[in-house]
């Protein structure tokens, strides 16, 4: 087209500061903790837990970013995923008890698939019945989804009873791999792997598919996306269902992480997920990922260094990040 004068393009502003937070935190903690092997254990535990929290929080951040709907009932899907899995454990017990990683992975995949199916379907029902009538009314949304969560939790107690249920790890997932001084728990490695796969898949969908394009644009300016001819409502329902399914996945992973299920487990994780979403920036999957790692790693370090302050450490973390960037690490530019 126009040859001739060279045109200086503005540099692509890459915002890498947040990417450094987790490594910096890990490095800073090393001298405080003292022992290298302990540090590795804690860091790995943090990363594994962070992956699981990321899985559950990612749906939450997209749902909010896309349609300003804050689902306080999100925790219910986490619990439901775990409980759906435990119902199925007897069916795959052969695979779970076999001492082979492949068989165990197969069992895990089966449990995850069922959990995601159940929570996906319930997510659809929840969206249509409970959320849809209160679009655009944030106060009612909060109230109604909290109500949904209360009812869901009570129903779980009705069906499964109020006491803790045990969810033992599959045989080959138990124990640790030992490298010299350092013990690395097998299940934590699996959790990290699963988390990375999910994260990669999400990035792929968001950045390389038209659907992802719609979601990213919708998070920024839903009205304009409609003016371009797309039904954002349907998009939103899809993302809500996906988010609920991911919550279910997270619930299964979390259940195995703790090897126990309680009716309130979803709510407990949800509080952490909320912190993560706030830290990461509403609507940003990348921010959510970093936020989840930060929160989990901080919790683990704090749990070791100053156990009484573990949850408080996350509040402090959130406060610090908000002071630095008041809309989170990677806020999505809005209108």
């Amino acid at each position, binding site marked *: 087209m126009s040859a001739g004068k060279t045109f200086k393009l503005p540099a692509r502003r890459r915002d890498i500061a947040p990417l450094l937070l987790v490594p910096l935190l890990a490095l800073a903690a090393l001298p405080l903790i003292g022992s290298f092997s302990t540090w590795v254990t804690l860091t790995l535990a943090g990363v594994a837990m962070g992956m699981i929290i990321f899985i559950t929080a990612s749906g939450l951040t997209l749902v909010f970013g896309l349609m300003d709907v804050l689902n306080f009932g999100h925790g219910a899907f986490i619990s439901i995923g775990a409980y759906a899995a435990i119902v199925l454990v007897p069916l795959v017990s052969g695979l779970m008890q076999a001492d082979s990683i492949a068989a165990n992975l197969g069992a895990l995949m089966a449990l995850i698939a069922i959990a995601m199916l159940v929570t996906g379907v319930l997510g659809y029902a929840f969206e249509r019945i409970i959320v849809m009538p209160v679009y655009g009314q944030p106060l009612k949304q909060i109230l109604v989804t909290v109500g949904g969560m209360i009812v869901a939790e009570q129903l779980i107690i009705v069906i499964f009873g109020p006491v803790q249920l045990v969810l033992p790890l599959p045989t080959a997932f138990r124990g640790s791999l030992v490298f010299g001084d350092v013990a690395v728990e097998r299940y934590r490695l699996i959790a990290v792997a699963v988390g990375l796969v999910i994260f990669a898949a999400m990035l792929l969908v968001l950045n390389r598919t038209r659907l992802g394009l719609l979601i990213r644009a919708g998070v920024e300016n839903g009205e304009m996306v409609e003016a371009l001819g797309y039904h954002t409502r349907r998009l939103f329902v899809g993302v809500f269902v996906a988010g609920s399914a991911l919550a279910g996945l997270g619930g299964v992973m979390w259940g195995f992480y703790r090897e126990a299920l309680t009716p309130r487990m979803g709510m407990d994780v949800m509080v952490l997920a909320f912190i993560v979403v706030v830290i990461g920036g509403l609507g940003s999957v990348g921010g959510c990922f970093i936020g989840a790692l930060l929160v989990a790693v901080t919790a683990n370090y704090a749990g070791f260094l100053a156990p009484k302050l573990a949850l408080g450490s996350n509040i402090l973390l959130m406060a610090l990040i908000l002071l630095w960037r008041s809309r989170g690490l990677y806020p999505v*530019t809005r209108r």
Partner: protein
Amino acid sequence: MSDGAPLLSLTGVNTHIGPYHILQGVDLEVRRGGLTMLLGRNGAGKTTTLRTIMGMWHASAGNVRFDDADITAWATPDIARAGIAYVPENMGIFADLTVRENLLLAARSGPIDDARLRWIFGLFPALEKFWPLTAGVLSGGQKQMLSIARAIIEPRKLFLIDEPTKGLAPAIIANIIAAFSELKKSADTTILVVEQNFLFAKSLGDAVAVMDNGRIVHTGAMAELAADRDLQHRLLGLHLDQHQ
């Protein structure tokens, strides 16, 4: 494409936003082909009119007909798919998406047509240079170009454009005027533009409609209005060649 039924017609359209009664019986007809300017003071209801046509606000009374269909109660995406492209006042650029992705999104039927893209690059060379960058780094004028480019990336029957020159430097405005002239040459293009810049209006407008207090108070040919300073003063409260 003779003068027959107007492409777009609003009849007795009333729009309420909360307790405010913004449009108080708008009657407007836009003929096929050519460019219609919608002028008026601030607060007259021009943007509300466009948004009502586009379905973002629903008329509380009256109806909107487009291409022989009653679109009054349609949802915005359906209205867009009926063939209306909308360029809003704030441009509606997706700042976190690249220029390429912005255009890709607008090209509903699949990949971007190459010839069309060449044409757009011809009108707006900056877009070609900024192609892989996120739209947030573009200047105001370039964002406006991108917004217009999105509207024309595929053939559409009607363009609704809200104050395209607002806040832009004269050189950029000239660029945009050139682009619109080009656009007008394509057959089958009807454009409805809300503007306050009369130079722009005068050079491009075929027909003109003036709004005041939520109603259309004058319609006619642009040439007429441009020639009649008293009429200009009455309708718009000032001499339009001062208002640039």
